[in-house]
């Protein structure tokens, strides 16, 4: 592309030449913009700094991909049932999910599942009788409570799954 040869353009060209040479020499990618290059280059770098996806964005897009994958290809054929169960409670490690976060998520999810199991147990025993050590008969109330706990627990586990 032919360039206009006027002193101002030549100055810009020289600054850009120095700039690119400096970047190559120092193998720099970001930051430390030389002064006098003009706002455009500074803005291009600024845009680059702003354009990082948030953890929520990463998670949302990943979930959408997983849903679409299951609709298109079905469940991951290479994963065993056992691996899927484990992943349901303990999400796999990745770039935006640290080991600490996984531990936190896993403990919470397993605790919720344990509460669900406990609720079923309590409903079956009818609440129990601690003074005699025999199973009590709480009537319909324990089952209602269990139903609410199990449904709410399952919904929460399903909605928040990250497998």
């Amino acid at each position, binding site marked *: 592309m032919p360039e206009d040869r006027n002193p101002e353009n030549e100055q810009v060209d020289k600054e850009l030449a120095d700039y*690119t040479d400096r970047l190559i020499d120092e193998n720099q990618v970001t930051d430390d913009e030389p002064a006098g290059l003009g706002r455009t280059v500074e803005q291009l770098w600024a845009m680059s700094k702003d354009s990082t*996806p948030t953890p929520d964005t990463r998670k*949302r897009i990943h979930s959408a991909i997983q849903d679409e994958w299951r609709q298109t290809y079905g469940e991951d054929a290479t*994963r065993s049932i056992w691996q899927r169960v484990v992943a349901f409670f303990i999400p796999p490690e*990745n770039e935006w999910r640290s080991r600490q976060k996984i531990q936190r998520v896993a403990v919470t999810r397993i605790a919720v599942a344990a509460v669900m199991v406990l609720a079923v147990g309590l409903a079956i025993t009818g609440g129990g009788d601690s003074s005699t050590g025999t199973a009590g008969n709480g009537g319909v109330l324990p089952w209602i409570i269990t139903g609410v706990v199990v449904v709410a627990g399952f919904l929460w586990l399903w909605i928040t799954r990250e497998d």
Partner: protein
Amino acid sequence: MQTRYENVDYTKLSDEELVKHAQQGALDAFSTLYERHLNSVYKRVWYGVPEQDVEDVTQEVFIAAMKSLKSFRGDAKFTTWLRTLTTRKVADYYRRTRRKSADLSAEMELKEEHENLPVQESGLSTVERIHLQDALNQVPEHYREVVLLRFAEGLSFKEIAQVQGNSLEATKSLFRRAIAALKTQVGESHA
């Protein structure tokens, strides 16, 4: 086909190996590709479409990649293939919304009327971003590409030269011309 109980550390595989696993039905392999390339795709899209649509278009890129994965034969590098797909999706976005890049100026005028414009972490205002995006959409494709490789993907000039199959000197020269054209365009946009 991989056995069901085979335990593969996908993070250690190359893109092309991951594609092979994903083609065989391994969702985790595709997830690894997603994690590896999300930043560069997101950044590319960020330079191309309005902020509120960046996430949607990025998602479309990965879903399109997932659906056309079977047709990837490995003739080109996966990154090149994904880059092309991203460019196509950004173009689709403008076709679909029947929006020309010039409309970004209209959007900017609208935004200028409002007070309390959001300013990004870097200090770049929404108006400045739209000006720049508008200019970027109006420079020739090969100029835009070299700018995106440099700023959106953060490649060194040596890497850009390799990607484009050019010499280092030719790449530097192209970059200088692209920046000069962009500066002119920004100047015109502000006029």
